[in-house]
Structure formats: structure tokens, C-alpha cells
């Protein structure tokens, strides 16, 4: 049975060193929980962005919470480069495991299926292969070549098995079923992760699996470890379908985070919850 907790208790369920999967800005980012994680002084997180991130990763990196980040991209979008991520990269303070979007999706699908790897086309000739010694090339056995040196080389990517997946959604019902709509990468993340923590705008009154229309967009509770209510929990990012991004706040962040003292001031001066 799913436990309903508060966001500080949720942050406590993400111990230092957790391999933590988080979604892209368009999918429902648990920003309130992220602030709680920073407030508890999290360290050594191994972030996996699914497949990219923005202000969430930048905040965590800036706060010194991240040891490693596997990502296809970190950017503030219309607000430019992610300043703390870029600074940490230049200083070599974070181990960046550069990937590409479909490689992250495929790695999670491998974990979802319980297989050790997943093949992916493309990639060959990219310098990503030089920095990802955990990616293997084999000859496609279905093209008739030898595996070791065969024709038709293809890359195998290792399964990505996060310890925790963390995201924000609109609703969860009493039992812990979570409505994710068509943001199905959240389901893949949850299937791939050992457990999933979810913040929601509000508790859904009813059983999300009882109504076939809602069920089609529901992540079943069997993947969910705990749920916390966090109203406007994606703020200042958008929760698509519910509210838009707070553009002024992100601009304020982008400007402040250009420098380390500016970032520290921003952290100190930002409310943990949306206004």
C-alpha cells in the first residue's frame, strides 16, 4: 500500500548517493521536492535526466547535491544555458555522462523489460562512444556477420536502473494510482526504477483505475513508494494542462545563477513553496 507523506519526509527517502531519475521540463518536475532535497543537504546524487533537464538539474548541481549526471542535455530553454551546470562542467566538479535522448529512453526500457541491454541505431561515429565506455558495439547477428567484427555494427546500451524516480503530477488517488496522462515516459521511468516518489497537486477523489478513460493515463500504485501533496509543486516550471511556467521567476533564477554568490542568494531568498 502506498504511503502518503509530506515533502520533507519524501526528501528523506532519497538518501545521499541515490541514482535519481527525473523527467524533462514538459513532463511534470517535482520542484517543491527538489527544494526540500536541497534543504536537507543532499549529497552525491547520481541524476538521470529523462532525457533532459533544466532548472531542476541546475539547482541540484549548484547546491552541490550531484556527483554524477547522465543526460542528453541540460538547458534553461528560452532562458539560455544552465549556468550552474555549465560552471560545474568547466570546473570538472560533476561527472557528466553525456548521452542522447533515445539512448536514455532505451536504457530505461531495458530496465523495464529486465534485460541487461537494448540496441539502438545511430551513434556510430559520434564521440559519445568515446566517452561512454559502457556502450558496446557488436555486429548485428541478423545481418549474418560475425558478432565481434561483423558487418552492420550496432550499439548496445546498458539498462538504466534508477534507485528512485521522482516526478510531479496532477492527481493521485487514495491507493496511490497516479494520473500521468500522455506523459508515458513517467511510466517507463517508474517501471525502470526500484521505487517511485510522486508529488501531486491534489488527491483524486475516486479510483483512477475504475474509470477506463482515466485508467488509460494512470500509473498503477504498484510502482509507487510514496505520494506527497505539493500544491503548485512544479513551480516555477509548468505543469502541462494545469498551469504555465512562471517566466519571471525563471528569468530571475537565470540571472542570479550566473555567479555562485548570486546562486547562493537565490537559494537563500526563494520560498520553498510556490507563492
Amino acid at each position: 500500500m502506498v504511503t502518503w507523506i509530506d515533502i520533507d519526509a519524501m526528501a528523506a527517502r532519497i538518501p545521499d548517493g541515490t541514482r535519481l531519475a527525473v523527467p524533462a521540463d514538459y513532463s511534470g518536475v517535482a520542484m517543491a521536492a527538489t527544494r526540500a532535497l536541497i534543504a536537507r543537504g543532499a549529497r552525491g546524487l547520481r541524476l538521470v535526466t529523462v532525457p533532459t533537464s533544466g532548472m531542476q538539474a541546475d539547482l541540484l548541481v549548484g547546491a552541490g547535491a550531484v556527483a554524477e549526471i547522465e543526460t542528453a542535455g541540460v538547458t534553461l530553454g528560452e532562458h539560455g544555458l544552465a549556468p550552474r551546470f555549465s560552471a560545474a562542467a568547466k570546473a570538472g566538479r560533476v561527472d557528466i555522462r553525456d548521452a542522447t535522448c533515445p539512448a536514455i529512453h532505451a536504457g530505461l526500457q531495458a530496465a523495464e523489460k529486465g534485460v541487461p541491454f537494448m540496441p539502438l541505431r545511430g551513434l556510430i561515429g559520434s564521440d559519445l562512444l568515446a566517452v561512454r565506455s559502457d556502450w558496446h558495439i557488436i555486429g548485428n547477428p541478423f545481418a549474418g556477420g560475425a558478432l565481434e567484427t561483423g558487418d552492420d555494427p550496432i550499439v548496445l546500451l546498458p539498462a538504466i536502473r534508477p534507485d528512485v524516480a521522482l516526478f510531479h503530477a496532477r492527481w493521485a488517488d487514495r491507493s496511490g494510482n497516479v494520473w500521468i496522462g500522455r506523459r508515458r515516459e513517467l511510466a517507463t521511468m517508474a517501471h525502470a526504477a526500484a521505487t517511485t516518489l510522486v508529488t501531486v497537486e491534489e488527491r483524486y477523489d475516486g479510483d483512477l483505475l475504475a474509470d477506463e478513460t482515466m485508467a488509460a493515463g494512470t500509473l498503477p500504485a504498484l510502482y509507487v513508494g510514496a505520494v506527497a501533496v505539493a500544491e503548485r509543486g512544479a513551480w516555477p516550471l509548468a505543469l502541462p494542462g494545469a498551469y504555465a511556467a512562471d517566466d519571471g521567476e525563471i528569468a530571475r533564477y537565470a540571472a542570479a545563477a550566473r555567479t555562485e554568490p548570486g546562486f547562493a542568494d537565490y537559494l537563500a531568498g526563494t520560498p520553498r513553496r510556490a507563492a
Partner: protein
Amino acid sequence: MNRFAPTELLIAALARQVRGLGHVAVGNASPIPGAAALLARALSGDAMVVSILGSQRHNPYTDGGRELFDCAGQGRLDAFFLGGGEIDGQANVNLVAVGERQAPQARFPGSFGSAYLYFVVPKVILFREEHSRRVLVPRVAFVSAPGCSAKGIHRTGGPAALVTGRCVFAFDRARGRFRLDSIHPGHDRAEIEAETGFEFDCLPEPAATEPPSDAELALIRGRVAGELAETYPRFAARTWNRAA
């Protein structure tokens, strides 16, 4: 003659690159390609399927973030727009970093989907507004995605063109070189040679890039601006004073 902003010329020029195609997708942080795809869709009488990453309304996918890539792998995606921190004369693209890997001089956001889509989307349109030797380099420092592949490498797609703030290059895959095809109004060949860090071929008489027609301009400023504002509110506000 109509009057248009340089951004509007770019939108029209990019839209022309995907004219007549069935399914066109636009990735992260790409307002001008996004507008181009929406313009191309409007001009197609909505026959074109367009997906704008980050948009709810202009996004036909329902299978999560992977569906764009799966579509491409199935051969269902005809064109994609791609940017680059650096782009070189072999159409290699760098979206990662410049300098030492452990302590780079510049760090870009990351490769996004380039290392895959560049291989399997028939027509990848490179777009970078800044046309300078800083961006258009002899050789990228990091190959996020290679412009060309050896024989025997599975590749059903690749670069078709590079559109910048100064001109349109076509990419010749057989030769592995860009060819200057048209120059935007107000720019010239000498300037382009001076600002381009790689060698390129040139048509004997490169054309002037065709300006947007009145009908295109009306669509850009009306329907397209409105549709784009959902995903790129700041860009739309800045360009057309348009709110989401």
C-alpha cells in the same frame, strides 16, 4: 515589396526546406524552426503532421518522449531541425563542449537526440542563426553527430541543408561538403567567406534567398505566431508582441 524582419525570412527559408513532406518534428529550444514547421503545415492545408517538442497542442504523440525517436526509427519522420554549438564543413555537429573533456572552455547543453536522429531522419535541416567562425569551424571539437558515415553503417538519413543568419547551404552527402545555395538579402559572398571557418563549394551565381511572400508573412504573423506562443512565449512576445 513587403517588409519583413530577418527572423521572418529565416522562418520562410526553413519552411521551404520541408515543403511537401508528410511529417516534420522540431526539438528543444528551437523557436524559429518551430515557426517554420508551423508555417509549412499551414501552407500544406494541414496535411503535414508537425510535432513541436514541449508543446501540448502541436504534438500528435501519445507514447511519451520516446515516440519521436521511435517514429524516426520506423521511417515515419521525414525531417527534423537541428542546431549546433559548432558545425563543421563535413556537417559534423557539436552540442557538448569545446576544450578538454574534464575541464572544457565552453560547455553546451548536450547532444539531445542528434546522435540518433541525424542517422535516421531523411532530411535533417541544420539551423544556427549566428554565422561566425566561432560556430562554423574547420573541425568540431566534439562530434555529437557525424555528418557522414562510412559504407556499411546503417544510415537512412542525414544533413540536407544548413540555414544561418546570412545564407542557405545545401549539403552534398556524396562529396561530404556544403554548397552555398542562396544569400539572404543584405549579405554577400565575401562576408560569408570571411565569417565561415570551413571550406565550401559555391554555385556560380548563388541566388538571393527568396523573401517571404505576403501570404507567408500573413500566416507567420497570424496563425503561426499564435500557435508558437504556447511553447515559446518569450520569443513570440519579442518577435511579434504576441502572448500565449
